[in-house]
């Protein structure tokens, strides 16, 4: 995880424990973060992380999460994954 000004960059391959830590980290800082970027080449491997990103976006709609806007993730390990955020 890298913090650069108001931009946060995270990897998607977080374990459940790391996701919990990430949640704890971002809760008090949500107001100061403008963008959450994803590390290049990292692969979504948890629906819990996807849910957390959706929840963040739902809490602060102006938060920019380019990965979430894609609505799709394609990989050999998980196939094509679509998500619907409903907003």
């Amino acid at each position: 995880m890298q913090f650069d000004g108001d931009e946060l960059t995270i990897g998607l391959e977080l374990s459940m424990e790391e996701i919990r830590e990430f949640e704890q980290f971002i809760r008090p800082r949500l107001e100061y973060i403008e963008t959450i970027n994803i590390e290049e080449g990292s692969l979504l491997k948890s629906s819990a992380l996807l849910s957390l990103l959706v929840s963040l976006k739902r809490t602060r709609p102006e938060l920019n999460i380019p990965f979430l806007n894609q609505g799709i993730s394609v990989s050999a390990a998980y196939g094509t994954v679509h998500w619907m955020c409903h907003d």
Partner: protein
Amino acid sequence: MTKQEQVKAIFIEEAGEIIEKLDVDILRFEENPGDFDLLNEIFRGVHTLKGNANAFGFTRLGEFVHHFEDVLDYYRTSKESIEPDQLELFVESVDIITEVMTCELDGLPDLPQGYDECLEKIIRLISSKKGETPAAAKPLEAPAALPDLAMEFGLDCVEQLEEKISEVILVTQAVQEEGMNLFRIHLTLDGDSYKRGFDHMLFLNLLAEKAKAIESFFDMSSVAPMDQFSCDENTLKSVTVIVLTPQSEEEIRENFEFLFDHEYSVTKIEAAAAVETTEPAAEETAVIEMRRGEDRRKEERREPRAPSDTSASSVTAPKSTIRIDTFKLDELFDSVGELVIAQNFIAQNEKIRSIEDESISRTIETLSKITKRIQDRVMSLRMVAIRDTFDKMKRVVRDTSKKTGKELHLNVMGEETEIDKTMIDSLSDPLIHIIRNAIDHGLEGSAAERIAAGKKVEGTITLRAYHKSGSIVISVSDDGRGINKEKVLQKAIERGVISGDENLTDSQIFGLIMQPGFSTADTISDLSGRGVGLDVVKTSIEKLRGKVEIESREGEGTTFSMVLPLTLAIIDGMLVQAAGEIYIIPTLSVVESFRPEREIVHALKEKGEFVSMRGQHIPVIRLSDVFDLETERIEPWEGILVCVETEAGRIAIMVDELVGRQQVVIKPLGKSLARLKEISGGAILGSGDIALILNVDALRPLIEAAHGGN
């Protein structure tokens, strides 16, 4: 049929459904041109149609639809108001699409008349629009259009989930090879699944190991904002996975063996090539909406739709449907009929009833309840709302209005009324004819004539469906000039239909216009007035065991009512005994049954017997007289009277005894008994005996005939 041909057949069928829906939606849009949600819906249909048409080489259809799509796209993104002549072009375009589709299916070399002209109009319209308003030609730059585009083509909208999944299934089926299985897996993991070590992605990973193709859809709609969120708790509503794999269903299920049963479901989807087919001409397929009743309503309560610009959009909610061969449905109905008979046999069997064992009684009672529930549900499969038929009639009204130049308003009531699927197919033609007749002849010939009669210039046609006395009535009313009885009588005498000496009731006079070759129209139009049609209407409805009734008031209007039986298969009946025979009276017709006091029974010379009830004199009908049965003649106060509602008013059927009430399966009668109008069918009772079902409406004319009318 090859796999490719079968996939093509599926697409063709879908294209037919899309076109049918377009026809209805375009008229709705014409009524409410500000409903851009509906325009979006129309656009989506056209967009899908274009894809299907081009994919299967229907290039002429594809080309036309492509340009039509451009026009629709322009209006839906610019939200520019649509002029009446452009609306007319939309309607015309849907007509052309229907005709081109027929040409494509029949492999006709010629295009329908009007194709080139209509296509040119469309191209001209879109060119002029793009030329006049260049900004609108770039819809993506218009911020207001962005949410709509996202709604339609993204996956932001749960309503589109099913559509997208269906598309993926179809595409996957098209590439499915021998030995590959296609599964739809639905995951609804509990809130504590992460704590138990189960993440959705884990299962995707397991499935992907062996899959040839795997696509999943995460419904994130229930993920809460951070103040109510905890990443330890799974809040995903569901995940749907479509997987193409060489694995068997059993092997697929093994992946989920550590989950609770309610947390997953695996459904195998038949390969397109394995879809059972018979000769297309012999096969009739019914689309039955599987109602999810309460579940669906609950779902709607949980997920209120986002408010749209148009508060009362006409966009119809997507239906969850399953295609069932009607032959299979008929087999199911027959089997349920036999089940009802067997259940009645058990419930009424003296030997079984004599067993004094509470558990047996309770089991029989449970069996009875379950049988009734199955019967009701199976019957509901056969019932479909009349809405679609009424929707088609809107087009008939619109076209006839334009053709006759008469301004009119259509009222539609009771669209939710359900009717037997087998009947609904036979209703369109009679309805079309009656509606055209009502507009062409029922309504006054000109606006001046209506004004002179003290009416609004705009005529009103009312299309209504409702239940009445155990029947379904579909009526078409107009507020026109009404039927001129004198004119009808005069024509009937001229044509030798009647001699002129008859003492006819109003209903009988109006009924004359349904005779073959009868028309009172002074001028013949291409819509009606040739005297062919109304007699065909009558014959068609009678084939459905129904009848047509006409009510009319001169100067006020006319109502044609088609009275149809609720269903053709099973009825709830009251069993009665008369002269040693068991008869069945449809319970829906029964008002009450009683043993009359001697004082309220009267006999009038040449009029028969009557019973006085609450100020009404109700004719008494003895079944022994109707069926000429030899029996000891008893007085009405010694027997039981069953008061029933008939078309012509109430009658009291005199019986010896009330036997009970029972669901019975209507069995057709042989040719000789079928001639007896007083009998509508037969039924096998639980005891194995046969009972005749009374047609109560036919009982009254008999007594009137016997006693010389009213």
